[in-house]
């Protein structure tokens, strides 16, 4: 127990400790390299990037057939304007694929080290546990951002290549120039990315609870799925506004004639609340836990 508990502050027995910010930056860099270089994570990102490619190809092949114009929201607009491929791909990935990838990455953050037996060595590094957790959280958030960007960037490239980019027709029927359209779609991408921060915090907390990474990953995905299920029960409408997934699709706000920042703000505030609660839970757990593996 006490062997691995060299915690806050420069480790007593260690010879030369770099100044804290430098050590932190170094730790963050190596962690990012680890997370973004891990083959499993690269496969996940590639899989996500494949989604807009598949959608774009299907739409390109069927554009003149009777099947065109069918399907879920935003799909019908894609053939007219490649920018909508970004929106359609995010819309299709948001309910399950993105939470799954994020659950895998954030659930693995601490539990992965514990199961590989590397966590105790990591704790020997003269970096406080709080900062270590912060590094883990930043790496998980970076992966979440990379996941959203993988969908968005390939969506934009494939959409522009297959269908071109035109003025954007909003849900309200107004048409805005390409420049503003790109800004609005960028707003959607940013909103979707920030909407996933709550789930990252939940995954990080589960990851500190267990040494079995699969358990933390599954639990994280289950939280997202259960939240979606609860959100679909009208009897529970009283708790809907606070649910993790309730505001995810409010990104459509960016496609209305006047963006209601109150709606966007409340969606982000709910995520901030989940981040605060589960982030502090993860911190309390990680800084008090006995690490034996």
């Amino acid at each position, binding site marked *: 127990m006490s062997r691995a*508990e060299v*915690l*806050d*502050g420069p480790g007593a027995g260690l010879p030369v400790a770099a100044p804290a910010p430098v050590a932190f930056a170094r730790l963050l860099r190596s962690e990012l390299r680890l997370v973004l270089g891990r083959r499993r994570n690269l496969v996940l990102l590639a899989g996500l990037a494949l989604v807009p490619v598949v959608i774009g190809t299907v739409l390109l092949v069927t554009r003149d057939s009777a099947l065109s114009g069918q399907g879920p*929201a*935003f799909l*019908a*607009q894609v053939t*007219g304007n490649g920018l909508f491929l970004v929106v359609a791909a995010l*819309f299709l990935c948001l309910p399950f694929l993105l939470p799954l990838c994020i659950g895998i990455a954030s659930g693995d953050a601490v539990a992965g080290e514990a199961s590989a037996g590397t966590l105790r060595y990591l704790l020997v590094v003269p970096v*406080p546990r709080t900062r270590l957790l912060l590094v883990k959280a930043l790496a998980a958030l970076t992966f979440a951002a990379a996941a959203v960007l993988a969908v968005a960037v390939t969506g934009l490239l494939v959409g522009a290549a297959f269908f071109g980019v035109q*003025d954007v*027709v909003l*849900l*309200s*029927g*107004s*048409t805005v120039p390409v420049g503003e359209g790109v800004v609005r779609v960028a707003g959607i991408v940013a909103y979707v990315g920030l909407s996933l921060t709550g789930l990252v915090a939940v995954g990080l907390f589960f990851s500190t609870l267990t040494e079995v990474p699969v358990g933390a990953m599954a639990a994280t995905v289950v939280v997202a799925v259960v939240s979606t299920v609860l959100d679909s029960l*009208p009897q529970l409408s009283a708790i809907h506004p*606070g649910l993790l997934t309730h505001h995810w*699709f409010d990104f*459509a706000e960016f496609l*209305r*004639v*006047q963006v*209601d920042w*109150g709606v966007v703000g409340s969606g982000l505030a709910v995520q901030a*609340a989940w981040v*605060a*609660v589960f982030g*502090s*839970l993860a*911190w*309390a757990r990680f*800084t*008090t836990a*006995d690490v034996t593996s």
Partner: protein
Amino acid sequence: MADNETPRRTLSARGRWAVPGVVAVAVAAAVGVPALASADSAGPPDVTPAELLTRVAEAEPTPVQGTVVYTARLGLPELPAEMTGADPLNLLGGSSTLRVWSDGAERSRVSLLGATSEYSVVHHGPEAWTYSSTDDAVTHYTLDPEDVARYRALAERVEAAPSAGADLPTPADAAAQVLAHAEEDADVTVDRPTTVAGRDAYQLVVSPTDDATLVSRVVVAVDAETAQPLRVQAWSTSDGEAPSLEVGFTDVAFTAPDASVLDFSAPAGATTEEVVVPLPEVPADVAAGTVPDDPAGALPEGVAVTGSGWSTVVTLSDVDVAGLVGGDAASLATVPGAERVLGSEEAQDLVQQFVPSDSDGTPGKPSLDTTALYDQLTTEVPEGRLLSSTLLSVLITDDGRVLVGSVPADALRAAA
């Protein structure tokens, strides 16, 4: 344990676990405090119903923008679940969010919001557009040129009226008239002030004295500052818990909206349908400013009215309901008074919305199987089919009569 980790002041393990608790409490407080804060405002000074109506009558039309939530608890059967887009049919049940912009005069926009869709109605004086993002379709309503001229003349007359209005009733007189008329069948009172969309509001309560009606009371919340209505609730006698119909602002600002919001031009690639709406002939007595004493005299053939006040039942005879429901345009001619135009442009819009138009030979495609919808909403009774809701009952008899009234279904069946 972990509490001896540094020379610096640190929290014990228990102290650390208290942090998430504190955070959770802070989050709960952030959610709960605004609700508490709005609960204990002093409220506006008391008014009588007559004073309140006078202020409403005096109020100038004012620009407004805000969010409106509409909730219907009509007790109708559930509609098919796949209707998730923004569709006016959603207004039959459940809760819908609308966004409203108006410049207080001729231009306005109302958007019915779906999760990833929107149904917009843009109104510019004699013109109106609807746009549905789900099927990317525009409908453009216009008056024909002669009617536009008449519309302009009418609008000018209305604008000129206040300056020339020595013989027009003052707002106080008008309010007294409305109040006297309403009090024939109902008690009109002012309930204690409330808060709607964060603004102090008076509540005007109209409770029908008639026991035969389904309406228990209608409550209108009027903004204390601008005298604009902020919320309307209709309560049914069958549900004392929640209003059967409620439409009100959740967020409102009495400021002029952006011109760009009120503009509309059909997006490229959208299917556009042109509809010319005939302007109703204004009867001479209405144009002269007097209201006809006997409204029943103006009824078209085939329409009968029984009862009075809130429990009035309207009977339409010889209606080909099955044909109408099936989308057969010819059967529209069987509706009594269909050749006439409905009293308001909005009502006309609604009819045009749901009734296929054959003006250009292409019947509008129904967004949903209307026959299935009809079967779902109505129930079989010995007299025919019955649509029964908490505020309104409709009985369609097998011999082609349609009885409508804000009375219990049994009363309609007895009348049939």
